[in-house]
């Protein structure tokens, strides 16, 4: 019994009234938005719409104040040292690209090494690959153990190769496994590396404390944290944000422009070229404000209950191969039905109005590893749970899965 009232929580989401037939378990892809977020976005457009940082008029000054307040809200939520350590981007992918692009030349030189892991999302692989190939930088990869956990012994050994940058995800978007990020940052720092955390899934599970974690960069997307699409956060320590070469140049990010020479503005503006997603930032901060009405520990407990019920239900269905571990799991379960293509399983769930995702979940390197050990050569079905999911929905999903297995193996 948790103190968390899921029915009360659910009432904040118009989506569930609009789509009462559906059980939405594709939360790792994107989350639904509480009314507070939708209303904040509408209210901005209806009452305060203006461009920011530019206005000689009060409307623009008010819009700017709201936008900067949104930055302060995010900074407060992740306990940044300074508001200007929060850079608004269009999403986690954009943020990771800014980091990878921005560290080339300035920090990373030909022959240097960086360290990633086998379970990263493509957004934390491809940006590095593209630039590293071009500049002659070597990428090492932390392998997994038989339990699909990061191999921490190998991690320590790879750190001895003195990578200049170590970048890893807080929580795997496929398996749901919570990585030991605090320990990983500590070891990486001891080895002298810059640490980058892909928090796209992590921030949803639990607010991350930048001063405590003490990583150099942390990124996430608004749309996965009850917020709007098109907005994301690049947190960085001032020193490193100052070092990054901006990936975008334009309006507000420069200080003076001539055809001879251009100088950059200070943080956060130097990394926010052009008109930002003002309504997006305001919507994200509304999401955070709203979320803080709830006790995060109770939400975690509620999700744990769902997870337990799901695992125990799964064990009663024949031929289910579960790729995710139940411990240190943030509420994401990857699974397969023995010998069946995950697309077929997902399609039969879809017919029963259970929304899940099937495939390789933008983590092909992880699946090429998993394929050696499991029935995962075609990817997996992923059920991802959010705070607004109920035990009843877990049961509906289990029943639908049973039905799917029956049809597939008839």
């Amino acid at each position, binding site marked *: 019994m948790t103190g968390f009232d899921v029915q009360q929580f659910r009432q904040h989401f118009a989506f569930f009234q609009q789509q009462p037939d559906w059980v939405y378990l594709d939360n790792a892809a994107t989350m639904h938005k509480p009314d507070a977020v939708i209303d904040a976005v509408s209210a901005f457009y209806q009452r305060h719409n203006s461009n920011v940082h530019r206005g000689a008029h009060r409307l623009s000054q008010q819009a700017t104040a709201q936008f900067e307040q949104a930055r302060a809200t995010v900074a407060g939520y992740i306990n940044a040292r300074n508001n200007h350590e929060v850079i608004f981007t269009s999403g986690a992918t954009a943020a990771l690209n800014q980091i990878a692009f921005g560290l080339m030349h300035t920090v990373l030189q030909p022959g240097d090494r960086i360290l990633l892991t086998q379970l990263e999302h493509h957004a934390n692989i491809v940006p590095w690959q593209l630039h590293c190939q071009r500049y002659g930088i070597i990428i090492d990869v932390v392998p997994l153990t038989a339990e699909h956990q990061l191999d921490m012994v190998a991690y320590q050994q790879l750190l001895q190769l003195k990578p200049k940058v170590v970048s890893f995800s807080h929580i795997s978007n496929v398996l749901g496994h919570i990585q030991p990020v605090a320990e990983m940052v500590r070891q990486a720092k001891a080895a002298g590396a810059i640490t980058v955390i892909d928090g796209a899934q992590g921030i949803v599970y639990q607010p991350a404390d930048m001063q405590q974690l003490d990583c150099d960069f942390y990124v996430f997307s608004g749309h996965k944290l009850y917020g709007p699409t098109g907005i994301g956060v690049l947190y960085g320590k001032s020193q490193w944000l100052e070092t990054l070469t901006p990936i975008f140049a334009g309006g507000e990010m420069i200080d003076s422009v001539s055809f001879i020479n251009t100088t950059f503005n200070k943080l956060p503006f130097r990394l926010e070229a052009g008109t930002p997603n003002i309504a997006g930032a305001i919507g994200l901060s509304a999401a955070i404000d709203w979320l803080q009405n709830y006790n995060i520990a109770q939400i975690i407990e509620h999700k744990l209950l769902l997870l337990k019920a799901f695992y125990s239900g799964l064990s009663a269905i024949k031929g289910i191969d579960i790729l995710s571990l139940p411990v240190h799991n943030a509420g994401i379960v990857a699974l397969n039905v023995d010998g*069946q*293509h*995950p*697309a*077929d399983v*997902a*399609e*039969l769930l879809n*017919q029963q109005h259970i929304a899940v995702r*099937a*495939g390789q979940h933008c983590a092909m390197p992880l699946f090429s590893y998993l394929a050696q050990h499991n029935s995962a050569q*075609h*990817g997996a079905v992923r059920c991802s749970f959010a705070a607004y999911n109920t035990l009843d929905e877990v049961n509906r999903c289990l029943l639908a899965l049973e*039905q799917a297995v029956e*049809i*597939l193996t*008839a």
Partner: protein
Amino acid sequence: MTLEQLLADTKPALLEIQQRDLTDIKQAKDWQSKYRVLMQLGKKLPAIPEKMKQPELLVKGCESRAWLLHYHDKTADRHYFVLDSEARIVKGLMAIMLCLVNGMTTAELCKFDLCHSFDQLNLKPYLSQSRGNGLTAMAERIKACCPAK
């Protein structure tokens, strides 16, 4: 295995689907029955052997892979196709697609409205704009065999 053989093997399968299964699907009482039929369809088509699955035949759908082989009998102006997919339901749906277009002339293929035909079979939702199941991609690839004006 040669393309000729595959084409030859595909023909009777499509005939059977056309004559029996399509009606079954259209008249299926519940979704379960419909899917049971769909999943059988794929099995009726011959599989494309692994070594014939050249990368350029791959039809990119996001969540499952499929392959399409095209043969144009220029003398008779007839288009023939063979396809395969990793996923059974998708393969079943693609088999239906194949039934509808196999043996068409260029003119027929060009003006053929797949969406409309799927609609008549109560299968329209599968031809959404999503690349999710690769079905739309397959439809596009088939249409692309029709020479540009």
